[in-house]
């Protein structure tokens, strides 16, 4: 139960496996909750649909960055070899695009990989070393073999008693209140 003087972050419900978690996620989505999340040791097939989430935008972000990298590097090779430091080497034309394919390709991949990695971290709001969920002792098992649903107090439909009842009715084995402190 909540300690005195600390605000409740929300409730944390534990489920017994992937199946119960998935069906609970469907029900909680249908009940109209917004600020909740399903925690599991590995990604669960079909969870995105159950929670009614769209596909991640990372693909487009990476595609755009890759295109910028490609054009940028192509311009750099052009600028260096034709404008700034023109040298004729082995009788090839100054702008020998064929020879620039390897470095342009490498840079395209490089910036795409950076975007994929750091874009993911930004979208996930990571790193974040302190989070109310880490106050829960049982939550530690999410990275082992535990399955949880957390529902935040900030949800417009949040009501501690009702939500606890609801989560129990959709199959939670244990429900606890998580606090900020």
């Amino acid at each position, binding site marked *: 139960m909540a300690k005195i003087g600390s605000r409740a972050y929300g409730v944390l419900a534990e489920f017994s*496996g*992937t*199946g*119960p978690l998935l069906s609970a*996620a469907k029900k909680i989505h249908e009940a109209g909750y917004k600020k909740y*999340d399903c*925690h*599991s*040791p*590995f*990604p*669960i*097939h*079909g*969870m*995105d649909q159950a*929670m009614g*989430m769209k*596909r*991640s935008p990372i*693909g487009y972000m*990476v595609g755009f960055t*890759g295109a910028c990298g490609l054009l940028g590097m192509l311009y750099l*090779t052009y600028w*260096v*070899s034709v404008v*700034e*430091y023109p040298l004729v*080497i082995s009788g090839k034309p100054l702008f*020998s695009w064929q020879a*620039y394919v*390897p*470095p342009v*390709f*490498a*840079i395209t*991949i*490089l910036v*795409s*990989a*950076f975007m*994929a*990695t750091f*874009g*993911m*971290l930004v*979208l*996930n709001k*990571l*790193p*974040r*070393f302190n*989070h109310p*969920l*880490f106050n829960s002792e049982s939550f530690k*098992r*999410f*990275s*082992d*073999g535990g399955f949880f649903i957390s529902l935040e107090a900030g949800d417009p439909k949040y009501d501690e008693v009702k939500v606890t009842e609801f989560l129990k009715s959709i199959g939670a084995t244990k429900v606890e209140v998580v606090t900020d402190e």
Partner: protein
Amino acid sequence: MSSATEHHDPNCLVTGNPTFESITESVSCIPESRTPLAWKIMFSISASLALGLFCLIGYLFWEGVGVWGLNNPVGWGWAIVNFVFWVGIGHAGTLISAILFLLRQRWRTAINRFAEGMTIFAVICALIFPTIHVGRAWVIHWTLPIPNQMGVWPNFRSPLLWDSFAVGTYFICSFLFWYVGLIPDLATLRDRAKTRIRKIIYGLFSLGWRGGNRQWRHYELTYLILAGISTPLVLSVHSIVSTDFATAQVPGWHTTIFPPYFVAGAIFSGFAMVMTLSLIARKVFNLTHIITKKVLERMNMIMLLTGMMVGYAYSMEFFIAWYSGNIYEQFAFVNRAFGPYAWAYWIMISCNVLVPQIFWFKKLRNHLVVMFIASIFINIGMWFERFVIVVTLARDFLPAAWDYYSPTWHDIGLLIGSFGLFFTLFLLFMRFLPIVAMSEVKGILPQADPHKSGEHHG
């Protein structure tokens, strides 16, 4: 149960009916337990060798590349042989982590983590050699387009510059891929940590991962994209390495099949190295239920396949050398097979083409000792492949300039030292990080499927 249904039961991939918790336990206990004596012994040996490597490099900087056995026709000696060898080793890691992932080969989860680790450490070893080979290693940054007061820019038409772009990108991408894969597993170690220092370090590197599906959905797509872009990257890297040779007009080097041939050879040698390492890790850390015989058998099949591809390339080169009607081209190949380096050529053929043939037999590709010995032979053979390509240059167009290349003690020391560095990094990794991708292995357990988990639960 018929054999076919058994076949796609994921149970085959991880034996012994494990639970999520037992997977966590058997993998996490390795970095959490006391340091085994065997590890300490191995680490001190390899760390001393790595130290030796750095001393030799210091000596090289002081004296110059004259300490190597290079001579006039052979301007590239063991340094480039070792470079290509180590880059090649790295390729299997990316193949396992990226290409097999895209092909939905779920058995890869048992070996992908340390195959990826192997990639990174091999690429570190590889990057050393061209760096010290340039002679003045302190200006190696001149290969990158960095503005400078001399107003000089790099030559983007040079294969050696492509190398620094390609291998550099390869190193960074492999590292990102590896690290992204590690995040959920580092979170596991964080959540299990008992001491303060472990809590801080694993907590720092797991970035506050909470395993929520709102995180997983970005994470999964990122992982897929990284796999998707690593696949063409891995093809390009060894292709670009092959252009170091193939863009030249040197007989035996200039042949159009070089890019795919180098890639196949790289994957072949890398798989042999993964095999060697996983057999050791499996034995030392008791991971027989995760790195199952089934996994090892499939790796042997891939070695058979890639070994055949390499054999195909060898024969194509030979055939086309004859078919070209070019006497220099023909001489280059006859010289390889019957010239002064014939011994190296036949080591290469027997290790790379003949040895993998034993994997046609089910018994042999399931026999641990046999596959261990075979993997070592293949490693040796693939080193000799690069040796043959580089060193048979000793007989070029001018018979008056012909010479015989022999390495010096310094060349040999650098190669041994690079193995020391590789194993030092690898042992550190095995000691402090989860060597099997726990979250991925859990994902392929039968109870991970939400539509079946009811049956298994309870």
